[in-house]
Each structure stands twice: as C-alpha cells, then as structure tokens.
C-alpha cells in the first residue's frame, strides 16, 4: 500500500508539469499579453504628451513607435525575451524554489499576495463546507430512514431547488432582496468586514473606548508618524494609554478594528451569512443525495438483514451498523475539501466582493497579470492533487477492505 502512495506522489510531478505547461504556453502565444499592454500604455501616454507639446521635436521617435531596444527591454522585464520552453523551465525552476515571481500589477511577490488572501477564502469556504456537512448528513440519513414518506418527498423539493440554482446565483438574488438596495436592509452588500461604522448602525454599540490622535502628547506622536491629527485610536492601540483620561470617550464612528472582540466577531459573522449560505447551497443537493443513496444501499445489504435477524432494534441497526459504512463516501470527500472550496470561491467572492483567493485570480486574469494567474494555478492544482491523494488515504483508513496495489 505504501508503494501505491509513493507512486501516487511520483505521478503528481508529470501531472503538475502538464497542467502548468499547458497554461504557461497559452499565456505565451496569445496576443494581448503584458508586453502588448505595456506598449499600449506607453503609446497612450506618448500621444497625450505629444498633444501637449504640439509636435515640437523632430529628432524624437515618431509617435506610437517603440524602438527596437526598448521593445527588447520590455520583453526582458516581463520575461518574454526567451523562447517559451526556456522561459517555462526557468519559471518551473523558480517555482521549485517556492518563488512564484512578482506581480505585474501589485508590484509585490505573488507568494505574499496569496498568503494574504488565502485565509480569507478558507474561513468563508470552510465554514460553508462544514455547515453543509452538518446539515446534509442528518438530512440524508433521515431521508433514507423515512424513504418515500411525506418528509422524504417534501425535502426532495429542496434538493431539486439546490440542483437547479447554483449557489452564487442565489447569492446575487439574495443580495438584491436583502442587501438594502431594493427591499430589505438585513445584510451587508459584500466584503469581509465593515469599512465604516456609522452611529446608528447595527454595531455602533460595540465600539471601544478611544480618542483622537491630536490629543496625544508630542513625544508619543513622534513615535507614530503615520497617525494624522484627525485619526481616532482605540484602546487596542499601544499609544492609547498616553491619551489623557478626560479626553477618552466612547467612539461613535469607526472601523472594524475599533470594535470590541465580540463586536468584531458579530461583524464578521454578519458579513459571512450570505456567502456561507451560498457555499452551503452549492453543496447541499449533491451531499444530501449522496448520503441518502449510500445509506439506502447499505440498508439493503445482507449484514443489515443479519443484524435484524439477530433481533437488534432498528435504531441500533441503522445508526450503529449501516450508518458507519455509509459514511465512507462522504468522509472521503473531505480530501477534496480545499479544492471544492477554491472552485466555489471564484464565483462567490466575485459576487460578494470578498478579497480572497478567487477574486485575486479573477482580477489577475482581467489585468493579464500572468505571474499571479500562474501562481494561483500552481496553488490550486497542488491542492487538488494533494486532495486526490488524501481522499484515497482516507479511504484506506476508514475502509480496511480496500487495498490499493
């Protein structure tokens, strides 16, 4: 069995190379890449300054023309000066050293960007994923136990709805209904936390004590050069203790950071309601049906018949014998958790404007920021490959009958 997993790990390498090579080649050969975009920006800038100058110099290059060496320089900057296979090998070499390059649009290492955005997606996606398990498993079990009862038929309606409405579509619909633009004002319009809390909003009562930066003593002010006079600082800020006691007051406006921990928790939860609901809806139908069918299949097996014949009660047979076995396909799905979450994040984060992994990938595609695009592809495919192995591994652990060879 260990040799099986070793082989699986070795197989990851060609898979990974195949995926990245395909996408890398596409980014190379299709027009409209970063070099062309840079030339376009340059030409636009030139034509604007040219209009201002009024056709003064004749020695300069003609408008919109880019000299050969400048083109060469641009290609070097974006790494387009070498043939694509050389560039690919160099890129792969750097990826092996965990260097994903520098983003063209953010001017920051891609790795830093991904590290910053990844937890956001994971928090939203994981909550949704786990919630969908806690809803779907009991529901599926109950549907299987009460097969073809009125409860089964009624809940099947919800399963059909789940099949027919993709989670993110429901997100757009609910955002319209509940987001305060057309009907009810119950949920925020998006983002992961409140940018500004006005007096009278849901969370203004959870604001901390704080003061204005202008009230700080001069000596302390110098330590924090970034603070402007009008900035408020809350009691978490290291400089807060230097504010004279009589100037401290309950804040009336502020940001997410100015809330107490309970307020911050509530604020985050408030922003998570709809996106998490969308994740759950996206997984709801398939998980429920999987659970139900799996349990139904086990209930028809001989060992269940034997258990009944021994005189065990229905509860014991179902929950102790059949349920354990029918959880196997559901449990192995946990291996794919991360890649399922990421697949959902491209759409849901776009709908709710959550600045996470998926939105980063989307924006990098719009801006033709290929280092980020490829970086996200690398992380995404690695997670998917590991997910495959983990789910196989879970299979082995849970179900001792299965032997890979």
């Amino acid at each position, binding site marked *: 069995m260990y040799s099986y997993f070793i082989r699986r790990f070795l*197989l990851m390498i060609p*898979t990974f190379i195949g995926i990245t090579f395909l996408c890398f080649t596409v980014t190379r050969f299709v027009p409209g890449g970063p070099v062309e975009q840079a030339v376009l920006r340059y030409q636009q800038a030139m034509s604007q300054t040219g209009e201002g100058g009024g056709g003064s110099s004749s020695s300069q290059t003609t408008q919109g023309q880019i000299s050969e060496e400048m083109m060469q320089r641009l290609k070097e900057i974006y790494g387009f000066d070498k043939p694509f296979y050389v560039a690919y090998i160099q890129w792969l070499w750097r990826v092996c050293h965990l260097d994903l390059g520098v983003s063209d649009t953010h001017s920051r290492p891609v790795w830093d960007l991904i590290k910053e955005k990844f937890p956001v997606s994971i928090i939203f996606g994981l909550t949704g994923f786990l919630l969908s398990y806690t809803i779907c498993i009991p529901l599926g079990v109950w549907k299987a136990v009460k097969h073809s009862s009125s409860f089964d038929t009624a809940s099947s309606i919800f399963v059909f709805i789940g099949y027919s409405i993709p989670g*993110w579509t429901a997100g757009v619909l609910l*955002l*319209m209904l509940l987001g305060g633009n057309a009907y009810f004002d119950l949920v925020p*319009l998006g983002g992961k936390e409140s940018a500004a809390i006005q007096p009278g909003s849901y969370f203004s009562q959870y604001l901390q004590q704080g003061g204005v930066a202008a009230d700080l003593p001069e000596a302390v002010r110098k330590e924090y050069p970034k603070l402007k006079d009008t900035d408020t600082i809350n009691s978490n800020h290291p400089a807060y203790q230097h504010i004279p006691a009589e100037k401290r007051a309950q804040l009336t406006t502020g940001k997410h950071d100015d809330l107490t921990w309970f307020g911050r928790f509530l604020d985050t939860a408030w922003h998570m309601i709809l996106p998490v609901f969308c994740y759950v809806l996206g997984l709801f139908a398939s998980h429920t049906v999987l659970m139900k*069918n799996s349990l*139904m*299949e086990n209930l028809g097996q001989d060992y269940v018949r034997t258990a009944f014949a021994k005189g065990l009660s229905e509860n014991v047979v179902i929950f102790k014998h059949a349920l354990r076995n029918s959880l196997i396909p559901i449990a192995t799905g946990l291996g794919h958790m991360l890649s399922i979450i990421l*697949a959902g994040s491209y759409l849901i984060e776009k709908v709710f404007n959550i600045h996470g992994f998926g939105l980063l990938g989307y924006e990098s595609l719009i801006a033709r920021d290929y280092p980020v695009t490829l970086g996200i592809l690398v992380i995404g495919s690695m997670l998917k490959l590991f997910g495959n192995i983990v789910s196989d591994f879970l299979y082995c652990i849970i179900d001792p009958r299965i032997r890979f060879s």
Partner: protein
Amino acid sequence: MKETYENNQKLINTIALPLFWAAIYAMFPALGEKGINPDYSIEAAISFGLAIGAVIYLLPLLIAVLGSFGMFFASPIFKRRWRKFQSLKRGYYAFILIISLFFLSFFAEFLINGKALFVKYQGKIHFTLFSFESARSFGLKGYGVPNYRMMKQVYQTRNSERAERLKNGTATEEDLKYKDWGDDWVMLPIYPYGPVESLLDELPCRPPHPPTWLTGRWRQAFFEESLFVLPEKQPTDEELKTKYNRPDWVGLDIAKLYREMAVAGLFELKPGVKMPGTFQHLLGTDDRGRDVFARMVYGFRTSLSFALVVSCFCYAIGITIGALLGYYGGTFDIVMQRFVEIWSAMPFLYTVMIFAAIMIPNFWMLVGILVMFKWMGMTYYIRAEFLREKSKDYVAAARAIGCTDGAIIFRHILPNALTPVISFAPFAVVADIGSLVSLDFLGFGLPAPTPSWGELLGQGLANLTKPWLILSPTLAMFCTLLLVSFIGEAIREAFDPKQYSRLR
C-alpha cells in the same frame, strides 16, 4: 472500424470529400489566392495531416457510434424503459415541455425580432427577415437597416395622407399608381424587439427601464425631471396636506417629492416625450437599452444548444476512449488511464477561465475549451461497463464467428453499455448550462452582444436596485435547470433502477 468503412464506403466518401476541402479552406483562407504561406509550412503540414486523419478515422467512428446508439434505441429493453419513463409523468412532461420550447426557440426569429417579416412597398412584397435592405430602398432616408417599427408608423401616416389626397382630388402621379399597387404595409413579428438592438432612441430616460406592465414604485426609474412639466413653484406643506391629501410627503426634499408626485401621476409629460406602452417591454430593458425578454429567449436557445453540443462532444470522446480502454486493456489501458487521471486533476473552472480569458473565444472555441477539460467523466463508466461486458458469453460467441474488434466494440458491446450515458446525460446538461452561465457572468464567456443569461446576471449585480435584471435570468435558469433535472430523475428511475430492498 474497417468493416464499418466498407459497409458505408459510398456514404463516407461523399461526406468526406467536401468536408476535407472545407476543413482545409477554413484553416487556410489564403490558400485559394496565394497558396500556403511558406512561413507556416510546418504548421500547414501538421494541420493537413490532422485534417486527413480526422476525415479518414473519425468519420467511420462517428457512424459506428451513431449506429450503436441506433441499436440501443431499437432494442426491446430500451422500449420497455422508455414506456417506464413515459409513465413517470413529472419527468415525461418536463421532457416534452423542454423539447418543444427548444424546438420553438429555433423559430424565435419569426416571433421575437426587431426586423420585419414582410414589407410591401410600391406593390412588391419583400421578405426582409434574413436579408439586408437599406432604408432607402423602402422610401425612407439613410442607407442603414431601417427601423421597421418606425417604418410601420410612417407607412400608416403616408397611407392615410394619400387616401386624403385621393379623396380631395389633389393626387400626384405616384398616388395614382398606388391605386394599382395597393397600400404599403410592414408585417412585424409578434414581439417586435430584437435581442441585440439598442432601443435608446425610442425610449425616454436612461436604461435599464423597468418592465412596462409594472406600475407604481417600479416606474420610479422612469422619472427624470426633464421629461415632465414641473410646477412653477414647489407645493407648500399646506397644499400637500389639503390639495393632494398626502401628509406623508411633507418634509421630503424637492427631488424626492417630485419623484413621488410623478409616480402618483400628477405631472404632465412634456410634448414630444412618449412613455412606452403597457405591454411593450415585458421584462424591461438592460443597461444598454436592449429588450430583456428577447435576450432571455435567445439566451435560452444559446444556453441549451451550447450545453447539448458540449455534452455530445464530451460523450463522443469519452465513449470512444472508455470503450477502447475497457476492451483492449493492458499497457494501453494503464498509460491512458494515467493520462485521464492527470487531465482530470486540472482545476477545471480556473483553467477554463484562463483559456477563455486569454483567447476571447467564439461559440465553437468555447465549446472546444469546455470539451477539452470535461470529456474524462464518461470514460470511467464506459470502461467499467466494457470490462464487465467483455467477459460475457455473447462477446466470446461474436469472436468465435470471426467478428472484427470494431464490430464487437460497436455492434455488440457498446449498445449494451450505453445505460450510464443516457442516465447521466441530463445532469451533464445541467452542469454545462451552469458552466456557461458562470463564464458569461465572469465575462469570459461568449463574445459581447451574444444574448446570455450570465451576462445579464452580471449586469444585475452591478445594478442591484433593478430587480428585473436579476429576477429574469435567475428564474429562467431555475426553471430550465429544474425541468432538466426532473427529466434526469425520471430517466435515472427508468433506466437505472436501484431496487432498494429493505426489511422494514
């Protein structure tokens, strides 16, 4: 394979030759004029080879696969299952409904279109639906496509003026000719708005416009001060309470107050401004002033055709490869299975997004991209079916009487292995519609003016105060997918019945 070719030699050759030349001309449009560009001679040679291979190998394959589908559909088992399917009312009616809607949508041009069906001008009847006619040839100004809705009105006024002149005896020479010609007329489709034409010059205010059958608050979007004759001075609080009997208007700022008053119908329209009629735009217009209902209908056709085409291609590839894997086994099976495994480890949505974003595809390119990353699903099932069927007696018997491999695969085994294909098809269609809508929503789908649901959802997300932009595509998609999954459920029930035996 060879046998299939020999059986259908004439048919294959007649189809293959034109296809072959069509493929070559499609790949090298310059061929007809200049010959193959020497810079691309290697690529040309490769494409040439591929084209030949495609024609010689794929065509018999296609015929063979279609043949096995034919045998599958003709088998008594299929007929029995089909009767079972018909008895499952929900799925059967959903099937009938969606098939007839899809069929009807191919005649959408005759029902929902901005162009006229027929125009009678100066005694001649023109069929204008698919041809380009300039406005000048119908007695209007300009060389562009005429606005047929306007033309209808112009013709009506002209006809009545002409009748007037004939009555008064001041008829011109042309008027007299019309005695023989008869009146001009324009025959418009039932719903005379096209999916891609912008109606900005016909509608007041800025788009998106709300559905015209809705009244009251929904019409607020129509209010723009420049459209109405405003009162000379703002009504005082006293007036609001007594004259208009609306104490709740007291204290509103002037813009809001005028809006409320306009919605309540207290203002006259300025001369020349025409509000749309009550049932003119059933679902309103989108943010470029295009009719949403027309776009929904055409979007239905696009989505469903797209999903069907993608599923067909995926199945064709998946079935063939799965069949070969299952039948031949051995090293080929192992190598190919590893390849399928590698290919399915791609993060599907993101890879498709990358390809679509970079290539900016048209309909068939998008089909190609999706098929490229989606064909693997079916291979597993077909392979498993083949592994099971291969060991049965009838296969051994077929081999004993000297059938070729091709005949065994396509004549004998495949018709028996198609059950999973049929029972998964509706769910594949659901998934493909979902993919297309997602890609369109993200802006990586079909190119810009193509009517699509996803694009409308994207507009809706940008205009959250305009519910018709979100409700229309969501409901259309929901209904379509619901019907298709009803079909899927019924087919699964009829074709793949899992008899759950239980003691209690």
